[in-house]
């Protein structure tokens, strides 16, 4: 079952990219709520290096879609002050690895302001971070930095894998009264689905995982850029006699344990798949939780397919690093556990 099939039936649906859905989400949020402000490097005239903010400055003016000086801590720090005054800043970090200068603002202030002030001063900031590899980018353009974010209490961390979710989750993030790290799988920017910008689908809010494909023999737990890879692997696995269920987390914080646990209890086997390094990565946490809650249902240990524990490799070698269909299938085969 795919959402694309479901979409095709919808009136007015035609192929749209994830990039278009993201732009539309910001546009609609800005039109509905004058407190929504987009800011970042090159987001105005250029529309961002990925063109995700295309047209926003033209439509809403440069006070609402602002080219800032080139300074990530300054951008996020200014967004904190703007949020303190009642605005809803949507911050674009140009690339995953260029968000690091802003980490102090993120961790010491953005994530903690609600807590420090006993709830008196929540910060509704959305931080959009294009992340992950697979685009042949040079060094510092392909990090999967989600482990840093999920380790920080006070932040929500979400990542869409479909055109639908790109719209819905971004709207939900902008509407959230808490700061949200919105991770955009940059290699899916140009992925398409039948989707109508005129009648965007309502999506479940932040914190809900979805079963993207039902199956009986094992569960693949994944998110973001690895979802299409997992769906492909699930198709290929049919030949091997495996009927794989695929769960798309969509939100890493909060983590929808119930959907995951329910699936794994049904299938009895689980593999977590993500691009980020394995050691200390989100998969480690997910595997631990699944083991704790599904121990008596498990036929095999929870396995992981992740990026290697190496700095992101140069473009000509990245294919060896990224979890692909073959590696997923090999790991699934190991679920035929015998001790």
């Amino acid at each position, binding site marked *: 079952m795919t959402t694309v099939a479901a979409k095709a039936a919808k009136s007015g649906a035609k192929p749209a990219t994830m990039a278009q859905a993201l732009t539309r989400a910001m546009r609609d949020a800005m039109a509905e709520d004058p407190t929504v402000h987009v800011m970042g490097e090159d987001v105005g005239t250029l529309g961002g290096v990925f063109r995700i903010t295309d047209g926003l400055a033209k439509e809403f003016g440069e006070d609402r879609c602002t080219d800032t000086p080139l300074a990530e801590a300054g951008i996020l720090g200014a967004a904190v002050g703007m949020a303190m*005054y009642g605005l809803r800043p949507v911050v674009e970090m140009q690339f995953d690895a260029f968000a690091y200068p802003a980490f102090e603002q993120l961790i010491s202030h953005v994530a903690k302001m609600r807590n420090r002030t006993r709830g008196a001063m929540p910060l509704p900031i959305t931080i959009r971070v294009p992340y992950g590899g697979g685009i042949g980018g040079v060094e510092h353009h392909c990090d999967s930095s989600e482990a840093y974010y999920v380790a920080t209490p006070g932040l929500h961390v979400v990542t869409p894998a479909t055109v639908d979710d790109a719209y819905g989750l971004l709207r939900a993030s902008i509407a959230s009264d*808490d700061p949200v790290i919105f991770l955009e799988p940059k290699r899916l920017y140009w992925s398409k689905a039948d989707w109508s910008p005129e009648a965007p689908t309502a999506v479940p809010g932040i914190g809900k995982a979805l079963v993207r494909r039902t199956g009986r023999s094992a569960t693949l737990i994944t998110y973001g850029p690895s979802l299409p890879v997992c769906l492909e692997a699930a198709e290929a696995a049919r030949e091997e006699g495996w009927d794989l269920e695929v769960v798309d987390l969509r939100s890493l914080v909060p*983590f929808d344990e119930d959907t995951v646990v329910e699936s794994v209890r049904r299938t009895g086997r689980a593999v977590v798949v993500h691009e980020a390094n394995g050691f200390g990565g989100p998969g480690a946490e997910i595997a631990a939780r699944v083991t704790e809650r599904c121990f008596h249902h498990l036929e095999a240990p929870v396995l992981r397919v992740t990026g290697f524990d190496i700095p992101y490799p140069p473009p000509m070698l990245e294919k060896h690093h990224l979890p692909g269909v073959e590696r997923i299938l090999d790991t699934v085969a190991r679920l035929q556990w015998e001790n």
Partner: protein
Amino acid sequence: MTVQELPGAGASHRPTPPPAWRPRTDAAPLLPDPEPYRVLGTPAADRLDPALMRRCYAELVRGRRYNAQATALTKQGRLAVYPSTVGQEACEIAAALVLEDQDWLFPSYRDTLAAVARGLDPVQALTLLRGDWHTGYDPREHRIAPLSTPLATQLPHAVGLAHAARLRGDDVVALAMVGDGGTSEGDFHEALNFAAVWQAPVVFLVQNNGFAISVPLAKQTAAPTLAHKAVGYGMPGRLVDGNDIAAMHEVLTEAVRRARAGGGPTLIEAVTYRMEAHTNADDATRYRGDAEVEAWKAHDPVDLLERELTARGILDEAGIQEARDAAETMAAELREGMNADPVLDPMDLFAHVYAEQTGRLREQAAMLCAELDAEGDA
């Protein structure tokens, strides 16, 4: 206007906001004068406003007493730590007094006194340092941002808030405080640059008290003065005697006025001295000599004003006694407030992480609850 009324409505002080981006038009020169600006003991003191100066004096005396009381509370174990501002009271108080109700103060970890002078309850102001919560007050109530411990990180917040207010057409100025050491941080640079590019209504007040813990200014910067740093950003830099409250008040008032009128940000360096150790955990004798401290005693901010005002007949013995009595009353109330053990609810640990608790936090809250029940039964 209060910011709580946001979003949307809210009466504006200024119906048509000036555009957020435009080149600097203010004629104020960028380079600071080579000598710190002074009023007390100079002919400029002829134009002192007696009522204002009596108020400044009362606040200075109260501030000095507050510092003494808070320091005493650390010795009694009532406060985990207190970074004293003895010697720096004129900066702290002038910063609070020049702001209007709708303006915002962005203090650093040392600036409890500025928050109290702005009207924050003296006990509430100390709960961060006592350790019962990270910020003991609602920032919107007094328009005082939480005291910021990571150095200089509050400066970009001040810029963002002032910028947001301007975009909304509200008449709001943000005054942000930082130490001399904090000016070496990247956030200081980014905040000043943003403020100047956006022409945001912000005043940056650097209290140059000679040291960042143990490191003297000469090892912090090679700039002629910290006020010189303004030039590179395109904003006026002002050098002022931080122990002269009349000079502080005048220079800050001028900067606030310029910001309010759309003239953009100002960087002010107040030259002052930290008379006590960095905090009670610090041993100042390791990095400075008594002679230096003694020399600064002769330039004490409270004495300076008291001398000037009594010489001019603006203040008499009765006035001095009145200020001291008021300070004693404040100190007694502070002692009493701080000697009461705070009532803490451990469940608060989970209450303010997210608007809605995550399943994980609910689970952990239940675990703590069970532990507390077990303790209660034991």
